């Protein structure tokens, strides 16, 4: 053979280049037979190609590298994501599972935020309650210091000293107090004492014996506003204990915690106001000696409670004072409500001060209902409990606490609160606010959150449905990729009516071509016509006619039909590959086209669009130049029901190869339009130009008219047999009657010419070998 080493190597490489490496090397071994030189050359080249391909494959994963085949760029993350999506969303249960998971996750996040919000809310509340207690205790302290000063000043006034001296003198005369008892309280000196009290705006003023537990003189504001005077009242033990303790602290004003009058006096004389009093005591000095003690007293339900109630705010926030034995010392904010309950014996006049122990009734009693717990079973409220436990431990030291866990107060209403015990003052304070009010904003938050979750749930449900649609989209894509039993692979071409894809049967893996008709045909009656025509053309079985295997509509309603897949060239391309097209091959092509058309015409089908692009030359299983006529009867009769734009196409067919009578009558379906087209194709084969061009060129250059001796000049080549030239000119005759009558006639004529010009198998093979060199 004349082939050089490299040419031989190239041929061998072409055969193995796409095989797996192992197979390739084995095949190289076989193909090189015993030619060691060739073998080593081939293997060296092969390894180079192979390693480069390998590198290229690796590079293909980098999206930025240019000149890549688009199909290969499938970045790994996308793939993983895609698989994940498929796994999570495509399987029904997995989808529910993953969506529920997302929902639960969002709920958890929502709850976390809610708890954070609640925590912050309670923290703020706690600080507020503590601040409230501090302010209240400070205010009380200042009030008391003010009272201290008043007492101090008063005790040093000459009037008081005078009265004290007078009383002292009486008592010193008779230590059995009989003389004092006999004194006429209406006398001027005693009346002046009452006036002093009134002038100083005091609720109670009294003078106490410097040693004995006896009130020598007491003036009190009566309900009517007039003063009342009492003398010689014996002090109760509790009060006297306080008294002695204060004496030890030395001179100056001391104060007593609020005490009920029965703890101040042993016998309460008729007409004395009952109540709980906060008292201030100041020694009355004469010549630096204590002659007696002056007492000022205030009923806690007045000024003291007023100060407390200043702190009331909102709908339920309240501050009250409580005694060591856990009773109210100031008027409750909700006294009116309490008066409707058993706590104040349903008595609308009874004061809440000192009337009951601060205990948890076990249920809300503000509506007047019975407590859930019997009185005997009731425990102190949590605030009181804490106070009691802590002061027990510390021995009545200052103590305080905050309770943010809602508990029931003495109304049985859930509250949060803070308490403090001020040992110096001898009472404690409690600040409480209804939990409902405190957590109201939390409630709003909860409502918002629940609404949010409801919306979220709806959205997720919708998303779920959306996903279904998403998946349907995916399925549509798949449908697009899968038509009937066939998997679409690549686009082969696109025409005015549809797109042709290469496809594979999903089981047989045999290759087919599928034409998907354009969507605008959906729902038009053109579709019915297509269907009929596909049916008709599928009945054609001549080997020169492309086989139509199947047709149908996709789920999306697109009409498609399945054809034989042809590996070859259109006549167009073959013509271009030649400088001078051999006559024998031209005759071969024309004749085979006629064979195909003969069958069709006999079955009443006219192709009407014969053109080089519709004639394929194939290399089929080693048979070279197998001719196939495509697009049978499928392009015609598209009528006006299709949109304006496509109406242009309704004539159907390529004008360059269209018989002139069809220009006048688009629906002309005479067999002889095909005969004309064959003639035009023949002229095209030899000249590479369209008949219209040929004619116009001749006419423009002033040569013969169509009717004249155009024939020989149309095709200038000398090597073409005259019979063929004449036959072709007959075919393209504008007068239909002068064309060959039918296919049989044309075939007979062509076959006759062919006798002298045969296109051999060998010639065909040679051409194909030079075209597809490595086949």
């Amino acid at each position, binding site marked *: 053979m004349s082939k050089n080493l*490299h040419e031989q190597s190239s041929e061998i*490489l072409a055969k193995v280049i796409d095989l797996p490496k192992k197979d390739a090397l084995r095949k190289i071994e076989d193909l090189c037979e015993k030619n060691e030189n060739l073998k080593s050359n081939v293997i060296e080249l*092969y390894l180079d*190609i192979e390693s480069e391909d390998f590198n290229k494959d690796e590079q293909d994963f980098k999206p930025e590298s240019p000149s890549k085949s688009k199909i290969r760029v499938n970045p790994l993350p996308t793939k993983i994501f895609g698989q994940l999506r498929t796994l999570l969303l495509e399987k029904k249960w997995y989808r529910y599972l993953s969506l529920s998971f997302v929902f639960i996750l969002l709920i958890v996040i929502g709850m976390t935020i809610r708890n954070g919000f609640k925590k912050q809310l309670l923290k703020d509340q706690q600080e507020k309650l503590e601040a409230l207690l501090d302010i209240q205790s400070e205010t009380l302290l200042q009030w008391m210091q003010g009272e201290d000063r008043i007492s101090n000043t008063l005790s040093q006034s000459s009037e008081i000293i005078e009265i004290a001296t007078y009383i002292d003198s009486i008592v010193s005369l008779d230590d059995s107090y009989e003389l004092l008892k006999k004194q006429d309280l209406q006398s001027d000196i005693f009346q002046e004492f009452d006036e002093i009290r009134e002038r100083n705006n005091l609720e109670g003023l009294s003078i106490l014996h410097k040693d004995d537990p006896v009130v020598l003189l007491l003036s009190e504001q009566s309900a009517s506003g007039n003063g009342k005077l009492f003398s010689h009242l014996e002090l109760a033990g509790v009060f006297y204990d306080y008294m002695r303790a204060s004496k030890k602290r030395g001179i100056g004003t001391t104060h007593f915690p609020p005490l009920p009058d029965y703890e101040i006096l042993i016998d309460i004389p008729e007409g004395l106001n009952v109540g709980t009093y906060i008292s201030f005591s100041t020694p009355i000095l004469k010549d630096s000696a204590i002659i007696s003690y002056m007492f000022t007293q205030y009923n806690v339900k007045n000024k003291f409670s007023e100060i407390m109630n200043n702190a009331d705010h909102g709908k339920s926030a309240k501050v009250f004072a409580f005694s060591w034995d856990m009773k109210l010392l100031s008027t409750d904010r909700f006294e009116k409500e309490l008066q409707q309950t058993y706590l104040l014996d349903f008595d609308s006049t009874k004061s809440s001060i000192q009337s009951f122990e601060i205990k948890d009734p076990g249920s809300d009693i503000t509506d007047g209902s019975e407590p859930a717990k019997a009185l005997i079973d009731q425990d102190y409220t949590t605030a009181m409990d804490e106070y009691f436990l802590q002061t027990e431990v510390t021995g009545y030291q200052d103590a305080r606490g905050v309770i943010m866990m809602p508990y029931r107060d003495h109304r049985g209403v859930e509250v949060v609160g803070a308490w403090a015990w001020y040992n110096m003052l001898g009472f404690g304070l409690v600040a409480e606010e209804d939990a409902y009010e405190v957590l109201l904003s939390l409630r709003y938050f909860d409502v918002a959150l629940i609404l949010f979750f409801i919306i979220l749930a709806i959205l997720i449900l919708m998303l779920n449905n959306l996903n279904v649609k998403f998946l349907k989209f995916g399925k549509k894509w798949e449908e697009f990729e899968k038509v009937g039993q066939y998997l679409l692979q690549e686009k082969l071409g696109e025409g005015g009516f549809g797109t042709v894809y290469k496809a594979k049967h999903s089981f047989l893996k045999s290759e087919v071509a599928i034409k998907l008709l354009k969507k605008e045909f959906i729902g038009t009656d053109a579709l019915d016509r297509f269907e009929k025509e596909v049916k008709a053309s599928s009945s054609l079985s001549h080997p020169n006619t492309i086989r139509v295997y199947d047709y149908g509509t996709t789920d999306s309603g697109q009409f498609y039909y399945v054809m034989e897949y042809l590996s070859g060239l259109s006549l167009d*391309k073959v013509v271009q590959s030649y*400088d001078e097209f051999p006559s024998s091959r031209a005759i071969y092509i024309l004749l085979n086209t006629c064979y195909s058309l003969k069958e069709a015409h006999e079955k009443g089908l006219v192709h009407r669009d014969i053109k080089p692009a519709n004639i394929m030359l194939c290399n089929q299983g080693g048979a070279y130049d197998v001719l196939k006529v495509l697009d049978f009867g499928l392009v015609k009769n598209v009528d006006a029901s299709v949109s304006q734009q496509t109406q242009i196409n309704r004539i159907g067919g390529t004008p360059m190869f269209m018989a002139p009578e069809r220009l006048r009558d688009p629906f002309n379906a005479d067999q002889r339009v095909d005969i004309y087209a064959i003639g035009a194709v023949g002229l095209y084969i030899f000249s590479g130009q369209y008949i219209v061009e040929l004619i116009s060129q001749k006419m423009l250059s002033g040569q013969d008219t169509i009717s004249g001796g155009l024939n020989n000049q149309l095709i200038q080549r000398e090597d073409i047999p005259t019979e063929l030239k004449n036959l072709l000119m007959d075919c393209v005759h504008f007068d239909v009657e002068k064309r060959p009558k039918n296919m049989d006639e044309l075939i007979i004529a062509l076959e006759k010419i062919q006798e002298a010009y045969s296109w051999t198998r060998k010639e065909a093979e040679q051409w194909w070998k*030079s*075209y*597809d*060199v490595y086949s």
Partner: protein
Amino acid sequence: MAKNQEVTQILKNYTKGKDDANLYPMVYDNLHDIAEKLYRRERANHTLQPTLLVNEAYMSLVDQNNIDWKGRTHFFAVGAQAIRRILVHHARNRDAVKRGGNQIRVDLEERLAFSTDKDEVVLSLDEALEHLAKEHERQAQVVEMKFFGGMKMQEIAEELGVSIKTIEIDWRVAKAWLKRFMSEEI
């Protein structure tokens, strides 16, 4: 006739071999002019791909309204040839000497750019292609068209009248051959 129309006319009635003699000088001259202008500017950072150059020549020499794809393909095939010659001449004129010892690696996938440091690449590739042409003419043509003309596989196949599969194999085998040849030669 204007040059533009002349070239268009030649391309329209193109027959291989016969018309190359007429077409080639015109394409060459035009490309040479464009290239010279570029070289005169001669900035290291100013580079132009030869394929873009051919395109530029095509735009100026051909009446695009009056030509089909076949004509365009012919033009680019001829342009590739011209570009190759221009690059080689330029490199020779600059007395670029192939340095021994240094292995020159040509990445044929990478588009060649006009820059002086590629001179030796151009010269050694030109030489290698001449050798390849003796071994396998079509493969050398494929490389020329693709590398110097920036033509697509389909265009080369149409120009050479063979199947695209043939061209793809030619390209791969030729690359391997050139790689070996150029590394052995040094």
